[in-house]
């Protein structure tokens, strides 16, 4: 037994040779470079998206106006001099606009030419004049400058989206119309102003009259219902499952199902809404009420999962302390656990709501993908929502809707950023760490 066994393993010493250290540093540098590249790609994509949206959409926030000298001829509008509102409303005010145009360009006499001349002004001009006269009958018999929205083609041209250099046959604005526009511009009658219409009206088939307000109100009404339903139900479900429910097969099954529901494609909730809310319960089509209920179903799993995670994060010592000083289980939850978990729950809720704000697919089935001009006044009035409005405008043939689409996307993004900022703020402000 004198034979000494050869050492089974060599003792491994760290290899501190310069080569190996250099290799390790190189690997680290490479890894950082990959990470930076990934971030750069993500930022570049986002930047590209934003630049493309803003560059297409910024021009929708302004609108070209044409000032015309309108003669509110008493003999025409109100020949009897009775100032009867019904008669005043029935008058064809578009004629006054046409007369002003003909007076401005007296050498245009041919019928076709006059038709394209009339096309310079948007066709809401007559209705605007009617409303002016009805609001102030004193205008009758006077002559004054009135600024009208120009038609969409003219507007697009003035904003420079139609090039003068193209051959005449290739553009929608013809040489003669350009000559008229130049003449009006030379007289200082063309004016580009902030487009208030875009923020105050509902949808329209005329791009110059189309606005985002109807869809914004629809989104607000829909999300109100979603919040009212999904927040209390979601929080109650989470509190019960987390704090009271016994741990058994049934609750396991429920938990698995909730997690699955969060991954169900949203169109499925729309089909459910169609079958249950519309066909079975007989609720109205296109109503924010039904839209809100469908979106609430979709948001519920998100809220339940977030709320349960927030409740879990409250340390057991808090519960034990409360129970230890004699609080009931309900008091423990309502006085201690829930308030401490609230920032997390609210964050989850806001993210769920932001998701619901951007949803169109489930609304398709319940008739909210529709052309709706009137601003909804209640939960059962027909309404549409912001993302649906974007979808409808993206589909419209008129060129000017391209800009409106991008502008509407900017409005939606603003809302989303605002909601996410509130979520971040809540977390920062109230979050507790143990």
């Amino acid at each position: 037994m004198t034979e000494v066994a050869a050492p089974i393993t060599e003792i491994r010493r760290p290899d501190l040779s310069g080569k190996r250290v250099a290799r390790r540093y190189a690997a680290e540098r490479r890894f950082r470079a990959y990470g930076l590249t990934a971030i750069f790609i993500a930022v570049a994509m986002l930047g590209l998206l934003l630049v493309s949206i803003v560059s297409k959409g910024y021009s929708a926030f302004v609108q070209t106006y044409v000032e015309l000298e309108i003669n509110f001829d008493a003999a025409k509008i109100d020949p009897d001099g009775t100032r009867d509102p019904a008669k005043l409303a029935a008058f064809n005010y578009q004629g006054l606009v046409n007369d002003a145009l003909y007076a401005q360009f007296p050498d245009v006499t041919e019928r076709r030419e006059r038709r394209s001349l009339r096309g310079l002004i948007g066709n809401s001009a007559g209705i605007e004049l009617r409303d002016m006269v009805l609001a102030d009958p004193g205008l009758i018999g006077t002559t004054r400058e009135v600024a009208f929205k120009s038609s969409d083609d003219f507007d697009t041209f003035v904003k420079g989206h139609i090039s003068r250099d193209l051959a005449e046959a290739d553009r929608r604005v013809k040489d003669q119309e350009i000559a008229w526009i130049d003449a009006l511009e030379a007289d200082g009658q063309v004016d580009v102003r902030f487009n208030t219409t875009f923020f105050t009206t509902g949808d329209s088939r005329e791009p110059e009259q189309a606005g985002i307000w109807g869809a914004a109100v629809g989104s607000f009404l829909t999300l109100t219902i979603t919040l009212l339903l999904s927040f209390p139900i979601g929080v109650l479900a989470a509190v019960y499952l987390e704090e009271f429910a016994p741990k058994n097969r049934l609750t396991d099954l429920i938990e698995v199902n909730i997690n699955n529901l969060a991954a169900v494609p949203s169109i499925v909730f729309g089909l459910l809404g169609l079958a249950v809310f519309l066909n079975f319960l007989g609720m109205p089509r296109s109503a924010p009420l039904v839209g809100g209920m469908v979106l609430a179903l979709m948001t519920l799993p998100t809220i339940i999962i977030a709320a349960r995670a927030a409740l879990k994060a409250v340390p057991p010592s808090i519960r034990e302390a409360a129970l230890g000083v004699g609080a009931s289980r309900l008091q423990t939850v309502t006085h201690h656990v829930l308030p401490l978990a609230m920032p997390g729950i609210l964050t989850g809720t806001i993210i769920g709501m932001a998701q619901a704000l951007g949803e169109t697919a489930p609304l398709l089935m319940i008739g909210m993908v529709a052309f709706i001009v009137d601003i909804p006044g209640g939960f059962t009035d027909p309404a549409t929502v912001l993302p649906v409005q974007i979808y409808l405008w993206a589909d419209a043939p008129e060129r000017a809707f391209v800009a409106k689409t991008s502008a509407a996307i900017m409005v939606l993004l603003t809302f989303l950023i605002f909601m996410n900022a509130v979520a971040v703020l809540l977390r920062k402000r109230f979050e507790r760490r143990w």
Partner: protein
Amino acid sequence: MNKNTIALAAAVAMALSAGTAAAQARDQIRIVGSSTVFPFSTAVAEQFGKTSGFKTPVVESTGSGGGMKLFCAGVGVEHPDITNASRRIKASEFETCSKNGIGITEVKVGYDGIVLANSKAAERYSLTKEQIFQALAAKVPVDGELVDNPYQMWSDIDPSLPNTKIEVLGPPPTSGTRDAFVELVMREGAKSFDSLAALRKEDKKAFRAISDAMREDGLFIEAGENDNLIVQKLEANPAALGIFGFSFLDQNSDKVQGSIIGGVEPTFENIADGEYGVSRSLYFYVKQEHVGVIPGISEFIAEFTNEGAWGPDGYLADKGLIPLPDADRAEMASQANGLAKLSM
């Protein structure tokens, strides 16, 4: 917790009461149906809302088939009053409607052309329906035999055509534009081959299986329902052709040009007088039982069929609707306003 329960109870109560209340009465016309008629129907709805004193009708774009399904489901405020269609009502749909006690008035409003267009950066194509069929069908006859479409270049079909790869963007099968394109171009093109024409006489189904099948080797690309998207893609890719409605060609005449089909260029005038061979009729259907129950339906029909709307100088022509000939228009207007009942 208490507050939450109250809020929940309030929300549910509100939901139920509001739901039942709204189902009892409706003072607003509801229109569903074709996405092709949608731009015209909405324009009339808006004008009607502004001038008539009635509420602006709600117009949904559900597709012709989807619209018919909703329309024929029954009589009552929960069902739509009018449906738009980019094809005539089918016999099966008419039966469903009759079975549910619905009387229909049919109104033909005008025509829509379907164009095959490409970027202005490239040459304008001049094609026949036969050549289009050869370029796009899954199976084509070559020397009397049906084979998988062998053509890769336009010049493979006819040496006079440009030597560029066949690449056509079109709508998916769910679209009415696709149905019309298949009916008006592919079937017509297939018929011009003797062997297929013979097959059509013997076995219509087998003929349809060949004429209606678009090739699936990547040269015909389903580009989705959005025609604006197709226009943008054509602009980016001058070698490609796209299939879409005439109003999009009209609005984008600085970017794309319509191919000449069968020797006729797709222009407003050529479609209106029937010269251009790829156009279809557009319709809307009115539920007679709702006239007088839902306020404003007859006034809406009057607005739609008024010369200022659907005439050659009306606002619908500005939106790209191609009007009916004068005589047809007058007859259709009297039928529509008299609520003539459709029978099949």
